[in-house]
């Protein structure tokens, strides 16, 4: 039982990093992107291939993943400048399906459908991880560092600028913000962080399977972020933790494996639908949104005839105004 929980720990940590990477992009820019799993795949394959085929040390493979993912992230910024909203999500969707195809079929580059087998254990300098407990401690520590960095980012002047770009790009540009450069930073950072989660995934599972990195993994990341709360640091952690543990918690009820797996997915999907219906902003909405809501509520107590401030349309939902 303890071993089981310890084996879940590193997985939760990896998903937290993935959720934070997506939250950086979605929370800061307001775009819905389905490409995050592709960046994770880039990291996983970079680390996996370089460690098995070319015997690189793990630490050297990380920048490779960051560079490739970062470049792809920058590439995906270009359509975002021209296309708004949901159509951009579809562009990223097209890119993701294409990426999955490359992972699965580029036999020369990625070993095709066989995937990368036999990836060694995590080993950086004097740190050699072998057991579930080692991985759990190390990965949770890394995830904690990532979350702290994200928290500092949202609280920093850069975070304020990014939210300005998200909420009203025109207004931000009018006060001199280079919206393109700021969004570029965010896209590259989000992609690189997702690549990191992939690079941590490879030495944990010791196997990179192309069918892992599909639009559905991206959707999982999106639901973690939306579930927890877009733009909210704690929300990302909460969403990742809940949605990783929930399906596994179901399997504790002893059902035949296919039914159990399907039931877990049903409950997970049902939970997501409920949250989207009842709390579209996520379980823990973003701090600035809560503040705006309080201001609007206070202003509603003004004399009749005064204009009531409108809530910003923002990202998600308006049905709980």
């Amino acid at each position, binding site marked *: 039982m303890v071993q089981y929980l310890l084996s879940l720990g590193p997985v939760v940590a990896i998903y937290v990093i993935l959720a934070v990477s997506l939250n950086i992009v979605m929370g800061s820019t307001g775009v819905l992107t389905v490409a995050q799993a592709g960046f994770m795949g880039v990291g996983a394959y970079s680390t996996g291939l370089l460690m098995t085929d070319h015997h690189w040390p793990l630490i050297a493979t990380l920048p490779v993943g960051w560079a490739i993912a970062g470049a792809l992230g920058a590439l995906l910024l*270009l359509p975002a400048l*021209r296309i708004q909203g949901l*159509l951009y999500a579809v562009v990223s969707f097209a890119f993701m399906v294409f990426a999955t195809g490359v992972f*699965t079929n580029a036999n020369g580059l990625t070993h095709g459908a066989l995937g990368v087998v036999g990836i060694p254990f995590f080993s950086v300098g004097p740190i050699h991880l072998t057991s579930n407990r080692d991985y759990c401690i190390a990965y949770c520590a890394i995830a904690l560092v990532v979350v702290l960095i994200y928290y500092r980012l949202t609280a920093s002047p850069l975070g304020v600028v990014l939210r300005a770009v998200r909420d009203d790009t025109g207004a931000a540009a009018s006060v001199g913000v280079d919206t393109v450069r700021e969004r570029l930073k965010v896209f590259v950072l989000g992609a690189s962080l997702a690549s990191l989660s992939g690079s941590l995934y490879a030495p944990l599972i010791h196997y990179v399977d192309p069918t892992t990195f599909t639009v559905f993994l991206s959707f999982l990341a999106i639901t973690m972020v939306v579930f927890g709360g877009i733009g909210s640091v704690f929300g990302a952690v909460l969403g990742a933790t809940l949605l990783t543990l929930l399906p596994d918690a179901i399997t504790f009820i002893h059902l035949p494996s296919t*039914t159990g797996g399907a039931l877990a997915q049903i409950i*997970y999907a049902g939970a*997501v639908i409920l949250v989207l*219906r009842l709390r579209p902003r996520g379980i823990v909405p973003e701090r600035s949104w809560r503040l705006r809501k309080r201001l609007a509520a206070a202003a509603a107590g003004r004399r009749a005839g005064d204009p009531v401030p409108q809530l910003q349309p923002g990202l998600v*939902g308006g*049905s709980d105004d």
Partner: protein
Amino acid sequence: MSTLLPLLVTGVTLGSVLAVLSLGFAISYWPSRHFHFAYGSVFICATYAIWYVAADRGWPLAIGIVAGGGVAVVVGLICYFVFYRPLRDEQTIFLTSFALSILVQNVLQILFGANPQAIQLPHFLAGRAFSLSSTAPVTVFALAEIVICLGIWALVEVFLRRSRAGTGLRALSSDPFLTECVGIESRRLTAWAYVIGSLLATVGAVFFALDYGLTPDAGTTPLFYAINAVLIGGTFSMTGAGLGGLLLGLVVNLGIWHLPSAWQTSIAFGVLFIILVVRPQGLLARAGT
């Protein structure tokens, strides 16, 4: 050249079915702006209904198709009334629709198992073929597919251009606010749009089920292709969606003339990505949309 002709045949066959499917997605999407990702669920429920009635229970295929249509319409309307209408934000609707598709897929897996199922062709269609050339046999069934699908597409086009409801749908697609101002009741019209979309999905379901068999996750690939076609076809354009479907069916099959067939999906989506970057409004949209 000898390998090209059979690929053209399969291309046109697949293209016709995709045209109908894409048309169904476009009719559900453009008038309502709800990204009906669960369209794949409507499709897969229809295939399972047809299978259950016709293959499992042994009733005639025609009854099965009617059952499939009924189930599809019900599922589509549930999506619309219960899930999409109460929500207002398109991203939330998209995510809800996606979660729904996961839900339905797993419910089907529990009910029917994950193993592939198949439906037999009725006797009068099975095994008959003729040849366009020595290397291009065309089954009577494939010919029927092409004729039926293109015929249905033509019918839908006539409906969209000549009937009040169809014109209303086109109006909704291009400007929902003005359409309401003119007095067209968008809610009921959109409900009808979902009904038509579900029926078109059923047509696609019939042919996909007969050609490829069924598994609970078999809805995703046709759905992806339909989405692809709708976006290539152009913003607000239903005809474009149909053309996109036809084009995709051809591109995908001709693509494997020189490339390994595993690259089919990648080719299709690579093309979409490029088109969306170069001309985001798609091929058939008017300039300025």
